[in-house]
């Protein structure tokens, strides 16, 4: 049963832990409930009735579809960029020891260690100075910047777990560096990269703070959501979109968890 401790958790500890977990999760259940509420003006509880008609209404909304499409495009491109950059950095930093290594590690973490607003306004002021017009690519640059570290963390954890003797064996058997990469390292890294990519995708799909600074007139799904939060137009549609966002980000995160279970919680933190 328990690994340690001669007695179980005290009742107070157990209830504090359960209450804390409830605090973390119960609010999300209400989001799902409100998506089915028949009330469309207020957030009245308990709802007067339940209906599925808002899903149909949301389905017909072109602005929602455009926002979803843009968010998907941004997330896919930023994730692809992050996978390339994060893997390169991981291959270089996983085992080598050299001067400046710590500085580079710090540099990789910086975009998520600093508050998002700093990253956002820094990029915005740089675009301003360089007179780059806002558009799809300015959003992608912002997202890729904080997605790199996610892929890097996953890849580096897997590389450190991969025995160096595998690489030596491959070289001893006559493979060159590229063949070792192709037939030994990448197959080993595969699921870690997939997991890192999924987390990066979820992070990008959901990001709003940096995006508000780096998007011009474009509306990603979180920006659409933010506009609705500040100035509600049709609350039931917002409720439905909220449920869609939850579903679209939960699935990749769950998948990432199952892909990296052995890697010392590699995917477990934005660190």
């Amino acid at each position, binding site marked *: 049963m328990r690994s340690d401790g001669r007695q179980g958790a005290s009742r107070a500890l157990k209830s504090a832990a359960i209450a804390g977990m409830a605090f973390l999760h119960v609010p999300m259940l209400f989001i799902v409930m409100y998506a089915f509420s028949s009330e469309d003006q207020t957030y009245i*509880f308990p709802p007067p009735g339940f209906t599925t008609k808002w899903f149909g209404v949301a389905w017909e909304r072109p602005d929602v579809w455009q926002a979803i499409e843009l968010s998907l495009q941004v997330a896919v491109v930023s994730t692809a960029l992050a996978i390339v950059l994060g893997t390169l950095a991981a291959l270089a930093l996983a085992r080598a020891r050299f001067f400046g290594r710590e500085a580079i590690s710090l540099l990789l973490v910086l975009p998520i260690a600093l508050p*998002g607003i700093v990253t956002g306004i820094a990029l915005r002021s*740089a675009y301003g100075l360089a007179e780059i017009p806002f558009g799809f690519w300015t959003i992608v640059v912002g997202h890729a910047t904080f997605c790199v570290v996610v892929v890097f963390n996953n890849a580096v954890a897997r590389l450190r777990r991969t025995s160096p003797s595998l690489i030596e064996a491959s070289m001893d058997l006559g493979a060159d*560096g590229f063949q070792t990469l192709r037939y030994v390292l990448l197959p080993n890294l595969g699921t870690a990269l997939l997991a890192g990519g999924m987390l990066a995708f979820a992070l990008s799909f959901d990001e709003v703070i940096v995006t508000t600074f780096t998007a011009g007139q474009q509306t990603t799904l979180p920006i659409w959501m933010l506009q609705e939060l500040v100035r509600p137009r049709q609350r039931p549609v917002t409720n439905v979109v909220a449920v869609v966002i939850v579903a679209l980000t939960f699935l990749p995160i769950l998948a990432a968890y199952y892909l990296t279970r052995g890697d010392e*919680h590699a995917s477990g*933190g934005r660190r």
Partner: protein
Amino acid sequence: MSALLAAAAAPAGPLRWLSSFLYNRRGLYLALLLAPPLFWLGVVYCGSLLSLLASSFFGMDEFTGMIRREFTLRNFVDLAAPANLDVIVRTVAMATAVTLGCAVIGFPIAYYMARYTRGALRAAFYLGVMLPLWSSYLVRVYAWKLLLAKEGVVNWVFAQTGMSWLLEALLSVPVIGGPSLSISTLGTFIVFVYIWLPFMILPIQAALERVPQSLLDASADLGARDTATFWKVIFPLALPGIVAGSIFTFSLTLGDYIIPGIIGDSSMFIGQVVFLQQGTAGNVPLAAAFTIVPIAVMAVYLTVAKRMGAFDAL
């Protein structure tokens, strides 16, 4: 494996030559690997940060609203104006309160997870903390807009249990109160704690998991009761984890401008001022100077945290 052998048997080509060339020049190999990520983060990202730093020293022409690219300390003098100092103090106080709140709620969860769960239950707890960490920031804020609304769930629960007087008493407290929970500083606090809580739980849990059972056995053998063991052995070893978690809760609260804009009264936080200054007011230099505040606060915080060994717990 046969693919590997077949590939290895292939005649030497330019790739193979390049491979051995790089193998003998470790430094060049590392430099080639690092060049693209370093270009991105070192040049593009750090360049942006430096341009932000630079623009905090630029001036604004008050008549034309144009940014003048000449050195001035005006923006930092402006920061010390009472209204702006007020914003800074409010934000730092909120970040401190949120950090304490997260530690108090997060510790029991982390402790229970680390010491009393195994197998499937632990995986469930772990996922339960990780999912909210990674997903749906805005939706989770939105959930509280629903819950805290005047006609919403929280008020309903207070009314059903006959505790409305308690809620009203809380809301009538000056500074933290307001007309309803969704328009009060208390509401802002609750939402901040809710959103950043996972960032506190995971480092504490990681720190507690590393406490070896033998230490606890030794403490018990030496005659310490459970409370003594907790305060003299477990808590000091968990402290780096708490400090590590507080780095996130503190930093994230300092920079957030969305939560106080959606849940809370009209009093401003640093993030909101930055957003307004660079947006509607168009005063990018002052906005840039404002972002130096969280960076400076975090630099001090990180230095202290490093002394306390928080980085080993990350």
